[in-house]
């Protein structure tokens, strides 16, 4: 079991807050890596919120390949941040030579594009870059999306933070939304792509647990969308399904829960919307999940969500103050970053709920 956490704040926060949320929870295989997705960025990226931001870890050759591709496809570089690492000896980190965070302007012909076309362009660009880097074994591209930054690394999260100066709170990286996780995959190979959170077209997701319907999900999802690739971790299936239900089918978010953990037949039969629920169960039976797990996600409109498996076998708690909400596997992490909150207001979501935190930090509980 791994621990996951996320923070949504009215005041921009730095990654050290996410680390302080995660570190008290670490146990077992934890502390073997650090990965985070930051959304709604301030600091050095605040001037480019509507321009796609590329998050990349690569070799020199990889950087060159990416540059060539982006030039050839008329993306214009606007701003760039390459962290200068603290290479002090003894740090537990398997660092890549370069970490590049770069804002681009859309190609000129993108002006006439619809929102959906632009989204497809960004996805296709990321997939193309991933392919190029994979073939050359020259690096990893995690996200290419406006106002989204992804960092993933293997090692001890404390040392990774030291390496990237995240403890300094220097104001470079600040965001109103951070999703984080502190370990590497233990079920499959250790690949940077396998580390949560995952990102796809504005959707961010990380999960605590396992998905025993991994193979069934994977085989079906492969046929649904070109963006559903990789599958380095069984938790990617949760993201693909979220994207499919909410982005592709354009169904209201509540139906995500009905797809991944459908109600028992007897309960469906007693509901007014039984026709719809039965049809969903029939058509998307292969997207049902199984096993113990908890999911934390962020939607393109920055709303943050959490939900659990149908038996609520993995813990999750939501803590809140007036200007910050944190979702976390264990309450000790939340106690660390918001010790003065009213603990009686903490939420422990149940197996039939989706908890949604909107941009005013209002917490809604939707019953399945």
């Amino acid at each position, binding site marked *: 079991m791994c621990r996951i956490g996320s923070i949504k704040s009215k005041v921009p926060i730095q990654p050290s807050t996410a680390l302080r949320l995660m570190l008290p929870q670490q146990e077992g295989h934890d502390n073997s890596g650090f990965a985070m997705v930051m959304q709604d960025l301030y600091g050095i990226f605040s001037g480019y919120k509507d321009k796609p931001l590329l998050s990349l870890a690569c070799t020199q050759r990889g950087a060159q390949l990416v540059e060539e591709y982006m030039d050839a496809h008329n993306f214009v570089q606007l701003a760039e941040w390459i962290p200068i690492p603290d290479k002090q000896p003894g740090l537990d980190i398997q660092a890549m030579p370069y970490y590049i965070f770069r804002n681009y302007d859309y190609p000129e012909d993108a002006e006439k594009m619809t929102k959906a076309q632009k989204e497809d362009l960004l996805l296709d660009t990321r997939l193309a870059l991933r392919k190029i880097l994979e073939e050359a074994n020259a690096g990893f591209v995690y996200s290419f999306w406006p106002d989204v930054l992804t960092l993933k690394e293997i090692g001890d999260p404390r040392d990774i933070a030291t390496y990237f100066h995240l403890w300094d709170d220097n104001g470079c990286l600040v965001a109103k939304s951070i999703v984080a996780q502190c370990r590497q995959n233990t079920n499959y190979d250790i690949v940077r792509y396998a580390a949560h959170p995952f990102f796809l077209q504005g959707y961010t997701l990380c999960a605590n647990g396992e998905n*025993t319907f991994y193979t069934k999900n994977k085989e079906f999802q492969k046929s649904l969308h070109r963006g559903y690739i990789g599958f380095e971790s069984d938790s990617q299936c949760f993201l693909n399904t979220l994207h*499919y239900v909410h982005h*592709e*089918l*354009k*169904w*209201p978010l*509540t*139906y995500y829960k009905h797809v991944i953990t459908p109600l028992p*037949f007897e309960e469906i039969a007693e509901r007014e*919307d039984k*026709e*719809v629920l*039965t*049809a*969903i169960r*029939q*058509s*998307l*039976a292969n997207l049902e999940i*199984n*096993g*113990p797990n908890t999911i934390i996600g962020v939607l393109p409109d920055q709303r943050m969500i959490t939900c659990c498996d*149908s*038996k609520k*076998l993995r813990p999750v708690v939501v803590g809140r103050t007036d200007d910050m909400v944190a979702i976390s596997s264990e309450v000790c992490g939340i106690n660390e970053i918001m010790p003065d909150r009213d603990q009686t207001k903490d939420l422990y979501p149940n197996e039939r709920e989706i908890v949604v935190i909107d941009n005013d930090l209002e917490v809604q509980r939707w019953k399945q």
Partner: protein
Amino acid sequence: MEAVKTQDVGINDLPWKIEYHAERCTMCGSCVASCSFKAIKVEVQAQSITTSEDSQPNPVHHHIARPIIKQVDSLTDFCRGCGMCEKICPNNAIRAVRNPDTRKTLLSKDNGPIKRGGRTNLNAQRTLDSIVVGRISQMTDPSLDAARHTFDIRAPFGRVLSAKELPFEIQDGKLVQSKHTPPVDWIYPLIFSDMSIGALSTRAWEAVAMAVGYLNEKCGLPVRMSSGEGGMPVKLLESEYLKYFIIQIASGHFGWNRIIKAMPHMVTDPAGILIKIGQGAKPG
């Protein structure tokens, strides 16, 4: 002493065992002479006996070598239970007894590997006896746990639309179905091979129809039965039982016109239509 191997054939592996009473035996040799299978033989057995014949204990050891009748432990010269030894013995000293624990069929493999089906019920070996039933939770890695995982073996039967084809509209943040979708039943995906109902006698298909009705209505099992390709009697087509039947139509078109003609008189829809486009082996 002879070496013994764990896989050696023992008397208890054989279908019949000889019950022999040495104290009644007169050593006449008739049983051994009469056994046409060479399943028994005369052997000398060493015995060690302690006796005391005085009124005070006065133990005396006797080491004696005594001829006895012994069963042969062989997969070729084994006792068939013909009973000839028992009939011929003047003193009721020997008889053959059926051994319920026999492993002869497994050991001798004289009928090849254990097989299913076939055209005879004469061999005593039955397939169901050879099936090992275990817990699914012990057969997967990682092991599955019913408390942690959801199991439901029902499956949709019918034309399932892809999610994008579903006629849904969003009203007040809820999905609403705007058109009909093809009917789908959730069934246990348990399939018995189709046996031609058209080839059965009236009593036989009546029994089968009642059985499938019983499973549904009394036992609550959503079982459906395929008609096979031989068509169906008109009486069955026009009955309530039709809802539990899947009408099969195959290249032979047997009984197909009867189905068409019965359609206006059907009181219920069949559970499904199965169009068979190919077949493997066909007996006969």
